């Protein structure tokens, strides 16, 4: 129990627009510390929906969600923001960097929000994360001026700046060529093994999923194999 980074009990979610739709049905999953887990399933099976519920951003669900053994039910949005800031890193399919900021600033922002370290320390950390991903030479470029593969790596660097317990990714390799996809995969592998970070990836990529520690398969809102 204490090793669980994330635990979901009987998660149910409905969409009401345009018609009532039962999107997630009695989902029970848990993720261990340092585990590399992928969620697979056909389009529309609810895997992205599940990811957003697990990410704490979507609060319209029934059931219990624990992060770091803390029940999140009933917490205020501001409190959830803090939990996300400290414990969860995000990587999205479309990398989502702030286009007017430099690469370095993008990586530094979540740490600045957390506000535990000085500016100089944060900068040092950010450069370290960027070099871990092999893009420290891009640090002072405006983030809209770098390539897609580089952007994705910046997004990963940003997701780990606060040393989160878990990284959640929505199709992190969906837009990348196989070489870049492999780099990203190796990186996650390294993070899970060396730094004991859990990684949860929603993906369509079978080869990617197969190489992870565990595959959670979904169909029609149910988890059919975990």
């Amino acid at each position, binding site marked *: 129990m204490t090793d669980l980074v994330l635990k979901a009990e009987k998660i149910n979610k409905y969409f009401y627009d345009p018609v009532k739709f039962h999107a997630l049905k009695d989902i029970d999953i848990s993720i261990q510390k340092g585990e590399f887990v992928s969620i697979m399933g056909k389009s529309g099976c609810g895997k992205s929906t599940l990811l957003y519920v697990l990410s704490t951003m979507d609060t319209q669900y029934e059931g219990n969600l624990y992060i770091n053994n803390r029940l999140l039910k009933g917490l205020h949005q501001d409190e959830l*923001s803090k939990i996300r800031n400290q414990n969860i890193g995000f990587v999205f399919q479309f990398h989502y960097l702030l286009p007017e900021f430099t690469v370095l600033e993008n990586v530094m922002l979540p740490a600045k929000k957390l506000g535990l370290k000085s500016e100089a320390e944060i900068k040092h950390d950010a450069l370290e994360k960027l070099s871990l991903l092999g893009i420290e030479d891009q640090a002072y470029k405006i983030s809209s001026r770098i390539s897609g593969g580089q952007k994705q790596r910046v997004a990963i660097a940003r997701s780990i700046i606060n040393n989160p317990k878990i990284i959640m990714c929505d199709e992190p390799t969906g837009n990348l060529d196989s070489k870049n996809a492999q780099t990203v995969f190796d990186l996650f592998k390294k993070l899970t093994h060396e730094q004991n970070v859990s990684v949860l990836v929603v993906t369509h990529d079978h080869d990617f999923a197969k190489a992870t520690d565990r595959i959670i398969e979904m169909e029609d809102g149910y988890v059919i194999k975990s």
Partner: protein
Amino acid sequence: MRNAVIFQIAKTHLVSRKKQSIIASLGVTFGIGTFIILVSFMTGLNKMLDGLVIDRTPHVHIYNQILPSEQQPIEGLSSFSNAFNVINSIKPRRIQARIHNAIPIMNELKNNKEVLGVTPQVKAQVFYKSGSIEINGIIIGVDIIKEERLFNLGAYIIEGSAENLAHTENGIILGSGLAQKMSVKLGDLVQITTPLGTNMAVKIVGLFQSGLADIDNSQSYTNIKTTQKILNQSNNFITDINIKLKNLEISKEMAELIAKQFNVSAIDIKSANAQFETGTKIRNMITYAVSIALLIVAGFGIYNILNMLIYEKMNDIAILKATGFSGKDVRNIFMVQALIIGILGAILGLIIGYFVSVIIDNSPFETQALPTIKTFPVNFDYIFYVIGVVFAILTTFLAGYMPAKRASNIDPVDILRGQ
């Protein structure tokens, strides 16, 4: 630290959209600048117009009112004390023209600590004679140096000076219209005749122009002694006493007090010039209404631009929220932007407003009414600048709050899923 990051994001947003930010700021600049110019200019004009009246009108004017006796003789008869007396066509009582005990009253008033100054006047109905022409008019005998000090008479003397009169025994300062009618100039002699038949020659030592044609065409000033001489009266013959108070606002109370204390008629400046206060109030109202309208327009500009910015920044907002920024943080990011726009715009507006006011202040403005004023009057009261800044910040705050609040309520899941 956290505030610093919010400030940094806000700054980056503004700087990366220089053109939009500048245009939004200029909206505020325009509003505040116009407010400053309008208010300074309008209140300057108001002050000048009020000055026309207030400077030369005594705050309390003591005089002898011509009235019927309050107690008719019949009422004194005991045999009619229970009767209801009806008297038709009552006429005013004949009273002496001078104020009884004028000099003791003046001495008493001079010692009152609310009083800034007291000047005596002697008014006389006269005919001005120049050759065969006779013109009806009024001569006012004054203590010219005091009048100049208290009621700014010097500002209306266009030729000669108040000192000239003070130093000339039988001198006169003639109304400019009067001088024109009689075709006389400085140094000429004018014959004065009273209804009682006294004749006297006086020397023109100055000309004044008040801007009111009726006065300029009939009135003139001499020393008190000269007028007393014309009227064949002794030196305690004083028909009016003018009082200037330290505080204009208590003029009404003072007038009532003086009337009661000395048993004279006294009128205060506000009762005598009620229409002026109304005019000033309405002009101020128009000024403020126009200025506020301008600022509201500027506020809508900010509202619009922030709304657009937030629409463009949906993805950024989603990602900020996903990475741990709270709704409040997002709201503050946009509020900071609104306030930066507002403050920069306001400061620039104050500077522009000030410089345009200086230009107006130095623009030539000549008017018959005010011979001493050569440029437009502008009121450089710092309070307008304070009001301008406060209002600008208030407007931008309100204009920024609604879009910022909307940004804080954006659901990141909607944006992230939508792609």
